[in-house]
């Protein structure tokens, strides 16, 4: 994991001081509310429906046990004793006092954390694969590049007031995409060219919201050392040419679409000719320095699939289910990647109490070298667990409510905070998720359905990624009442696609039965082993539409 040196500490310390000054000036009236707003947003501070909300950065999803315990402590001391893990691999406090935020930031700094650029029209937290560094098939560990991007983007003087927010994601897995990278403003795919050199395929202009678009390729190979000069060039073109007259048309995706990706690429390349030889060009020394923070932990030499592990799977069906659903293959023999799910029915998706967070920290220390990763679908990963300790871990996780073995299944829902917490939402989303989790609580039924993403957003800002859910649910406002529009066929993986709207929207109470009808059409039509998304792609929208909107007899 990256460790701050004196420079990093000083920059974050000065940022805390700066924000303390801004907060003081806001309270003494010399900084107007509308002048404070973009400044506090750039420090992750929203003022929501019920209270301020502070979003803390978890750079590319990595957290230490020490940091987890600090988050738990802060939530107890300054908040209501729980935290919320977001779709951007960040964490949120939902009830802090505005006055306390500088002190909270000071506490976070003590464990090398900050809230810089977690909101606002600037470059946000870079996300990556939660299995980075441990996945068997990755090209190269993407985290050093994410850290290099984090430093470059932190307090970047030219790009603090962009037309709109800006999100970058790095993917390094050749056959999967656990980061939903193609719906980012810039998607970087770590690749090796034919000569074996490391670089990136660069895609721009993906995004969700009102105009969901999949990112377009603008460069097939960018050498790794040119990363920052090229990012500077993309951002400069966007900063100068992106629309500022309408916030719904201000994301880079609108500019790329209006110009065409080809023309946009030409502008970037022309800009890059001026920038590519600047001192921002990465050095081998810097690549090596940052990579040294992400070396393998001290793995033991272990036998793969040891007998006590295999035996336990045979003896305990529940354990075997959990292994099949929530545990992934590790690059090192004898180790496994465990995903702890924060999706227990009855708890808002992604929420964890202070005690639960401390339990996760203890598990990380005991089983996984004191580190965890946060996923974009609100779960927590222990990336380095010995297979011979999985049974013990499973028992502990079960007791704490982290072992619902539904990863990637229907009830592993991505869901925004919705109208219960968010001032933007048209409709509540958490109660819909809950109703679905209650309706479909039969694990055998859920396993039989297989991999199926169901995503819920409370409004068209799409924080719940509904466009890329195989089944997407969007809260809409119909003459002041909360309704829900359903879309089918979205996909956030390598074959990323945007779902299509099924038809007129539904009342909340109808949602479980609507989803049930959709599932039934799938079950009746699928061939062996066919996933929901494949059946949908084969038979199309019509059979689903006919069933859901059929007149009752």
């Amino acid at each position, binding site marked *: 994991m990256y460790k701050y*040196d004196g*420079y990093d500490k*000083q*920059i974050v310390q*000065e*940022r805390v*001081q*700066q924000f303390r000054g*801004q907060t003081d*000036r806001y309270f003494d009236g*010399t*900084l107007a509310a509308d*002048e404070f707003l*973009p*400044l506090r947003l750039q420090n992750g501070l929203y003022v929501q429906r019920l209270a301020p909300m502070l979003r803390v950065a978890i750079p590319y999803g990595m957290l230490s046990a020490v940091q987890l315990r600090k988050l738990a402590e802060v939530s107890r001391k300054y908040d209501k004793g729980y935290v919320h893990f977001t779709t951007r691999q960040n964490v949120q406090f939902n009830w802090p006092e505005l006055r306390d935020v500088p002190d909270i930031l000071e506490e976070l700094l003590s464990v090398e954390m900050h809230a810089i650029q977690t909101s606002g*029209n600037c470059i946000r937290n870079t996300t990556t694969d939660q299995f980075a560094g441990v996945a068997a098939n990755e090209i190269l560990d993407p985290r050093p590049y994410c850290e*290099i991007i984090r*430093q*470059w*983007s*932190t*307090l*970047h*003087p*030219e*790009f*603090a*007031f*962009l037309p709109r927010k800006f999100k970058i994601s790095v993917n390094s897995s050749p056959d999967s995409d656990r980061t939903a990278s193609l719906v980012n403003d810039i998607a970087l795919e770590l690749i090796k060219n034919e000569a074996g050199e490391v670089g990136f395929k660069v895609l721009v202009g993906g995004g969700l919201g009102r105009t969901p678009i999949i990112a377009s390729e603008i460069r097939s190979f960018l050498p790794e050392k040119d990363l*920052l000069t090229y990012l500077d060039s993309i951002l*400069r073109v966007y*900063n*100068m040419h992106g629309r*500022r007259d309408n916030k719904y048309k201000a994301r880079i995706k609108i500019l790329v679409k209006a110009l065409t990706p080809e023309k946009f690429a030409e502008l970037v390349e022309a800009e890059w000719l*001026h920038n590519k030889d*600047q*001192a*921002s060009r*990465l*050095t081998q020394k*810097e690549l090596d*320095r940052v990579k040294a923070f992400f070396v393998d932990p001290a793995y033991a030499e272990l036998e793969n699939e040891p007998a006590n592990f295999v035996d336990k799977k045979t003896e305990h069906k529940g354990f075997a289910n959990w292994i099949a659903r929530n545990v992934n293959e590790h690059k090192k023999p004898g180790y496994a990647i465990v995903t702890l799910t924060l999706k227990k029915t009855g708890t808002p998706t992604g929420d964890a109490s202070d005690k639960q967070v401390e339990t996760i920290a203890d598990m990380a220390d005991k089983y996984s070298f004191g580190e965890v990763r946060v996923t974009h679908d609100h779960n927590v990963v222990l990336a380095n667990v010995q297979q011979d300790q999985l049974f013990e871990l499973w028992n502990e996780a079960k007791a704490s409510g982290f072992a619902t073995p539904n990863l990637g299944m229907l009830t592993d829902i991505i869901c925004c905070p919705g109208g219960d917490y968010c001032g933007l939402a048209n409709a509540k989303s958490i109660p819909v998720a809950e109703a679905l989790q209650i309706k479909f609580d039969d694990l055998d039924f859920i396993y039989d359905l297989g991999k199926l993403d169901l995503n819920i957003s409370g409004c068209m800002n799409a924080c719940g990624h509904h466009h890329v859910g195989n089944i997407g649910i969007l809260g809409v406002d119909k003459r002041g009442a909360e309704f829900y529009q359903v879309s089918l066929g979205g996909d956030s993986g390598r074959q990323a696609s945007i779902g299509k709207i099924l038809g007129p929207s539904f009342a909340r109470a109808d949602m479980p039965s609507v989803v049930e009808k959709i599932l039934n059409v799938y079950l009746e039509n699928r061939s062996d082993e066919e996933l929901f998304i494949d059946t949908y792609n084969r038979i199309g929208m019509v059979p689903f539409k006919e069933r859901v909107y059929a007149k009752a007899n």
Partner: protein
Amino acid sequence: MPKLINKSEVIENIWQTLDKDFSGELPEGSILAPLNYLLENPLILDSNPNIGIWLDSDQSSEALEPYLDKLSLIAINFPKFVDGRGYSYARILRDRLDYQGELRAIGDVLHDQLFYLKRCGFDSFAVREDKNIEIASQGLEDFSDSYQIATDQPEPLFRRR
């Protein structure tokens, strides 16, 4: 008399800014004329040393390239402080076109933007008149170092740490 920050010193702002659509005879004194006036009257810089040119946020600084050796003051307007285009215009002027004269931020120029403006090559700041300019000028020193290159620091931190 309004004030401005020149480098780090607060001085009187003697410059009169003409409207974006100004036409006709230039008034006496130190004048900031809009880009369009210069494009229509390209010879004014030859006859009058007390003229600076200001750009609005939708006017890229590249338009000034032919005039740079005759200009000693360029101002970039921030109609709202959240309109960040001027930062890129400034860097193009300084880093690419090698403009050496004074570069001034005008318009909605506030305490909390001064550090970023300075990094992008601005060296004078006409802070919005309703603000206390002495207090605002402290914003120039918010940070003592930065990760990335900009006009004020051509070497990124990774080449210096």
